[in-house]
C-alpha cells in the first residue's frame, strides 16, 4: 500500500459522507413519513375533482301528468390560447348572431382578471351561458371549424304547466347557509329553495358524481387520474309523484285570477292534497336560469307578496265556517242537542247581533243553515259556563278545537311553508284582560269565529275533511307514495255528533247561503264565512265537501277583501268540487264570470 501515513483519513472521508447521507435520510423521513400536510397540498394542486351533476328527479301529478322536468341548456366555452391562432372570428360571430365588437368586448371581459378571477388561457372559459338548443344548433353543426370552442351541457328545470308555482317551489343556487348546513353542497350547486323542491331536495337531487382529472402546472387538464379508478358515477334523483290533480290546480288558479286568495282541496280519506292554489302567483319558468335572480327580486318586491304560499301561510279568522266545529264541541260537551233552540232577534240580538234575517232557529241544522250568530253565542256561553270554573271549560273547548288540526303546523306534513294559525289560550286572555277579569261575554267573538282565532286555508280544508270523515283526518300531504305521511289523527268529537252538522252543511247548500252555487246531484255540503278584518272589505271564506254520503273532496276557499263568502268563495269551491267529481264544468258561465272578475287591481296577471 502506498501513502500509509494518511491511510486513516479514508475513514474521515467516509464518515463525512455517511453523516451527510444520514442527515438526508432523517430529513427525508420527516418529509415523507412524518409530515402529512404536503400530501393534501399535492392533491389539491394536481387533481381537479370535476363534479358530474346527476339529473334531478322529475315531478308528476297524481294522474301521471309530468309537471316538472329538466331542459338541457348549453354554455359555450373557449380556450383563449387556442383561439389565438387561425380563428375564424367573423364566421363565429355570424353563427352566434353577434357583432365583431360584441365578440371583442366579451373576450376582453374574459381576459380581465378583475372580472374573471379564475382566468387562465389554457382552461375553458365561459363565453356565453344558458343557450337553448335552438340557439345553439347552428354552432353545433360547425363546431369542428372552431378549435378551442367547446360546448358544455347543463340542465335547468322546466315546467309543463304555468301552474302550482308555490307548491312545486323553485331551484336556485345554494346560499352560504345551505353550504354550511350540508357539506354535500359546494359553491355554484343548485338546490331546492322552496316548496316541494326544498322539502324533497335530498330525494330529488340524486348524488353527484366525480371525475378526478389531472391538472398540470399551467392548469391544463391532462386526462383522467388512475384511469378513472377513483371516479364516481352520479346517481340520478328520484322522481316524485305528487297528490296534486293538475287540472284541478289549474282551475283553482284560474278562478282566483284577479283576486288575492287561495284554494285548498283535500281527499278526506287519504289526506292527499288535490289542489293547493294561492294567488297572486307566477309562471314557474320565471325562476329558472339566467333571468332567475332578476325575476326573484321583482317577485320579492311585489306588494301583493306572490312568493308567499297563502294556502298554507296566510292566516285568517275563520268567521262563520268556525260554527261547524263550535257546534261539534258543544254537542260533545253535551251543552246542546241537535234540537236545542236559542232565540234570535235578528240584527237587534245582544250581545252579538245576527247578520241574517230569519226566524229563531228551530234546531242546530237550521242554525248552521242560517248561520245564526245568537244561536252559536248561546251555545258557546253555555259551553263555557257548564263548569263553575271557566278556565276548565275553556281548556276542554280548546282541546276539542285543536283536535281538528288548528293552531299548530302539520308536523308530519311535507308542506314546507306553513303557518301555525292560533287558537287563543287562557294565558293569552289572562294577559289581555287580567286573571279572573274575563268571562264568556268577554270572548264572545270566538263563538262566531272572529277575534283572536287564526287559521290557514290549509287548516280550514283539513277541518272540512275531518267533518267529512266524521271524526278524523289524515295529515294533509303532497307526496303520493310516502305512506309515512298518512298518519290518522282522531278528533275529540264522537262520530255520532257529525251527522247533524253535516246535515246542516248540506242545508247551507240547498237552502242557505250557498244555495245559488250547488249542484244537487253532487250532494255538496258547505259553510260560508264573511270575516271582518282590519284591511278593508270582508274576507270571503268557504269550507265544504262533497258528496254528503261518501265525501271525495273537501275544499276551503279564501278570497281576501272580496265581501260575502257566499258571493265569492262559495262559487269557487263549488266549481272545484264539480270539476273533481265530474271531471268537467257544466256551469261555464259561472266559471267565466268568476275567473274574469278582478277584485284587486294590484294583482298582476
Amino acid at each position, binding site marked *: *500500500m*502506498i*501513502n500509509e*501515513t*494518511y*491511510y486513516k*483519513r*479514508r475513514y*474521515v*472521508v*467516509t464518515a*463525512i*459522507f*455517511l453523516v*451527510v*447521507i444520514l*442527515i*438526508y*435520510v432523517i*430529513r*427525508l*423521513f420527516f*418529509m*415523507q*413519513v412524518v*409530515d402529512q*400536510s*404536503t*400530501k393534501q*397540498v*399535492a*392533491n389539491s*394542486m*394536481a*387533481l381537479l375533482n370535476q363534479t358530474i351533476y346527476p339529473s334531478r328527479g322529475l315531478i308528476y301529478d297524481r294522474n301521471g301528468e309530468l309537471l316538472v322536468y329538466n331542459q338541457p341548456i348549453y354554455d359555450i366555452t373557449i380556450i383563449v390560447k387556442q383561439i389565438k391562432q387561425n380563428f375564424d372570428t367573423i364566421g363565429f360571430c355570424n353563427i352566434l348572431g353577434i357583432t365583431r365588437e360584441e365578440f371583442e368586448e366579451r373576450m376582453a371581459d374574459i381576459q380581465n382578471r378583475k372580472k374573471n378571477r379564475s382566468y387562465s388561457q389554457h382552461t375553458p372559459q365561459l363565453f356565453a351561458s344558458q343557450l337553448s338548443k335552438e340557439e345553439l344548433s347552428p354552432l353545433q353543426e360547425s363546431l369542428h371549424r372552431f378549435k378551442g370552442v367547446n360546448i358544455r351541457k347543463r340542465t335547468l328545470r322546466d315546467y309543463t304547466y304555468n301552474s302550482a308555482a308555490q307548491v312545486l317551489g323553485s331551484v336556485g343556487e345554494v346560499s352560504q347557509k345551505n353550504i354550511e348546513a350540508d357539506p354535500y353542497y359546494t359553491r355554484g350547486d343548485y338546490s331546492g329553495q322552496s316548496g316541494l323542491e326544498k322539502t324533497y331536495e335530498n330525494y330529488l337531487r340524486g348524488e353527484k358524481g366525480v371525475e378526478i382529472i*389531472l*391538472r*398540470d*402546472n*399551467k392548469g391544463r387538464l*391532462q386526462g383522467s*387520474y*388512475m384511469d378513472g379508478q377513483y371516479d364516481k358515477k352520479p346517481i340520478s334523483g328520484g322522481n316524485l309523484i305528487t297528490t296534486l290533480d293538475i287540472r284541478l290546480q289549474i282551475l283553482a288558479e284560474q278562478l282566483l285570477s284577479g283576486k288575492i286568495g287561495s284554494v285548498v282541496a283535500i281527499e278526506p280519506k287519504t289526506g292527499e292534497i288535490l289542489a293547493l292554489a294561492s294567488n297572486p302567483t307566477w309562471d314557474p319558468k320565471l325562476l329558472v336560469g339566467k333571468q332567475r335572480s332578476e325575476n326573484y327580486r321583482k317577485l320579492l318586491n311585489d306588494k301583493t307578496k306572490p312568493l308567499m304560499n297563502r294556502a298554507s301561510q296566510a292566516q285568517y279568522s275563520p268567521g262563520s265556517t268556525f260554527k261547524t266545529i263550535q257546534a261539534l264541541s258543544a254537542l260533545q260537551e253535551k251543552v246542546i242537542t241537535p234540537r236545542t233552540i236559542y232565540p234570535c232577534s235578528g240584527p237587534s240580538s245582544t250581545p252579538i247581533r245576527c247578520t241574517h234575517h230569519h226566524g229563531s232557529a228551530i234546531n242546530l241544522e237550521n242554525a248552521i243553515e242560517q248561520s245564526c250568530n245568537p244561536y252559536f253565542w248561546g251555545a258557546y256561553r253555555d259551553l263555557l259556563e257548564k263548569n263553575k270554573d271557566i278556565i276548565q271549560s275553556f281548556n276542554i273547548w280548546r282541546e276539542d278545537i285543536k283536535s281538528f288540526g288548528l293552531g299548530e303546523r302539520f308536523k308530519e306534513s311535507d308542506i314546507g311553508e306553513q303557518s301555525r294559525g292560533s287558537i287563543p289560550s287562557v294565558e293569552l286572555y289572562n294577559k289581555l284582560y287580567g286573571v279572573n277579569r274575563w268571562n264568556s261575554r268577554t270572548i264572545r267573538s270566538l263563538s262566531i269565529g272572529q277575534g283572536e282565532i287564526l287559521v290557514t286555508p290549509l287548516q280550514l280544508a283539513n277541518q272540512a275533511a275531518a267533518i267529512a270523515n266524521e271524526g278524523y283526518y289524515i295529515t294533509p300531504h303532497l307526496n303520493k307514495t310516502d305512506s309515512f305521511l298518512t298518519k290518522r289523527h282522531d278528533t275529540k268529537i264522537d262520530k255520532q255528533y257529525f251527522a247533524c252538522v253535516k246535515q246542516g252543511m248540506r242545508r247551507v247548500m240547498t237552502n242557505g247561503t250557498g244555495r245559488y252555487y250547488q249542484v244537487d246531484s253532487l250532494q255538496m255540503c258547505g259553510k260560508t264565512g264573511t270575516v271582518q278584518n282590519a284591511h278593508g272589505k270582508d274576507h270571503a271564506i268557504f269550507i265544504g265537501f262533497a258528496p254528503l254520503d261518501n265525501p271525495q273532496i273537501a275544499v276551503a276557499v279564501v278570497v281576501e277583501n272580496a265581501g260575502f263568502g257566499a258571493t265569492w268563495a262559495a262559487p269557487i269551491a263549488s266549481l272545484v268540487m264539480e270539476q273533481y267529481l265530474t271531471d268537467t264544468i257544466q256551469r261555464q258561465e259561472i266559471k267565466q264570470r268568476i275567473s274574469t272578475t278582478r277584485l284587486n287591481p294590484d294583482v298582476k296577471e
Partner: protein
Amino acid sequence: MMFLGWLNIYSTTSHETDLSPWSFQTFSGKQIVWIALAIVSAIVLVLIDHRTYDVVAYLIYGIWIVILLLPPLFTTGVKGSVSWIPIGPFRFQPAEWAKCITALAIAKWMSRYEYRLKGWRDLVVPIIFLIVPAIIISVWEKETGSALVFAAFFLMFYREGMSGYVLLIGAAAVILFILVIRLDVVQLSWGIGNVGIIAAMVLIMFIALYFLLFRLELKKESLILTGIIILTYGISCIINIWIPVNFNIISTITATLSALFTLVLAILYRNRDLAIITLFIVGSVIFSFGCKILFPKLPNHQKQRIEVILGLREDPTGVGYNAKQAGIAIGSGGITGKGFRNGTQTSMKYVPEQHTDFIFTTIGEEWGFMGTFAVLALYVAFILRLIQLSERQKDMFSQIYGYCVVSIFIAHIVINIGMVIGLLPVVGIPLPFYSYGGSSMLGFTMLLFIFLNLDAARVEKL
C-alpha cells in the same frame, strides 16, 4: 472480477436511469440513445491502454481549457447559463467533462516521482489546475453549480496529506457565514447590535480559547484571555445600564484584543501555533465582516436563493418555487410512494427541471421513502466501493485519480439531493446516473470507466 463487480453496481444504477425519465417520452427516448452511447464509450475507455491516460492528461487538459471557452461564442444562453455548444439536435456541455479531465491532470501532477504533499506550497499547482476551469465555468459560462463541484477536490487533497485544518477552516467559514447572514436581521433587545456579528465574534474567541487550552495547554494564558473577554463584556453591560452600548463594536474590540494577546504570546514564546491562532482570529473577523458587507452586493438571484434556504425569505412563487414544489412532490410520496408513473406532482410538471436536476423528486413521489432510502443506500454502497478501490491502488496516479472520482461523485450526490430536499441552495447540477442529459451521462461514464481501466491495470503491475 472487480471489473464485473463494478459493472454490476453500474448496471443496477444505470438500469434505473431508463426508468427515471419515464413520463417524458421524448426525453426517455433520447436518454436511451445516451445510455447506449455511454456503454459504447465505456467499452472504448476500458479497452484503451491505461498508460494512455497518464500520457495524454496534460494535452487533453490544455485542449479542454480552450473548448471550455467556446460555448458563449456559440449560444445566446439558456436561463442565464451559456455553457452549451449546439451539435445538431443535441446540446453539448463541455463543463461536464472538464471534471474528469482536470482530475486526470491533477493526478498526473501529483503522482510525479518527486512530488510530496507536505505544505501548502505543494498544493499551488494542483489548485491552479482546478481553479482555471472552475473560474471559466462560473464566470465565463455562468454555470456556478458545475464550478462548485471543483471544490470537491479538496477532499482528495485531504486524503493525500493536506492539513485537516483546511477542511476545518472551510467548515468554520460556512458556519460563520450562516451565523452572520442568518442572525444579522435579529437585533439585540438590550443595547445596540446585531446578534449575527456578535455570535460570530464570540464563536471565534471560543475556538481560539479551545486551541489555547487543549491543544497548546497554556492554562495560565487561557485564563488571562478569558478574563479579558469577561472584563470587556462585563464593563460594557454595566455601562449599558445608563448609556446604550453598541455591542457590535464591543465584540470586535474584544476579538481584536484577543488577537493582540495571542500575537504578544506568539512573539514572547516564539511559537508558530500561536501565530496561526492570531491569524485565525484576524482572518475570521475579517471574513465575518466581509460576509456582512459583501452579501448584500451579491447578484440578486443568488442572494435570494441563499435567503430562502436560510429561512429569511418566504417566496413560494419566485425563488422558492422550485424548492417548495420539490418538497411537496417528495413529501406527498409517503412511505411507499404513489407507484410507478402515478406521481401527480412530477408528471404534471409542477416541479421544474423535473427530468434533469430535480429527478430525485420523481423517485420520492413515486417510490416514497422506501425508494429514496434505497437510492441513498445504493449511493452509499457505490461510494464505499469506490473508496475501497481507490485505497487498494498501487500507483499514485490511480489512487489520486480514484479519490478525484470519489470526491466528484460525493459532491454531485450531496449537493443535488441536498438541494432537492431543501437543505442546500438550488444550484443546477445533475444527479449521477439518474438525471437526463447526455453530456453529464458521458462525463460520469468517463470518470468511472477510466478509473476501472486503471484498476484493472493494477493486476498487470503485480
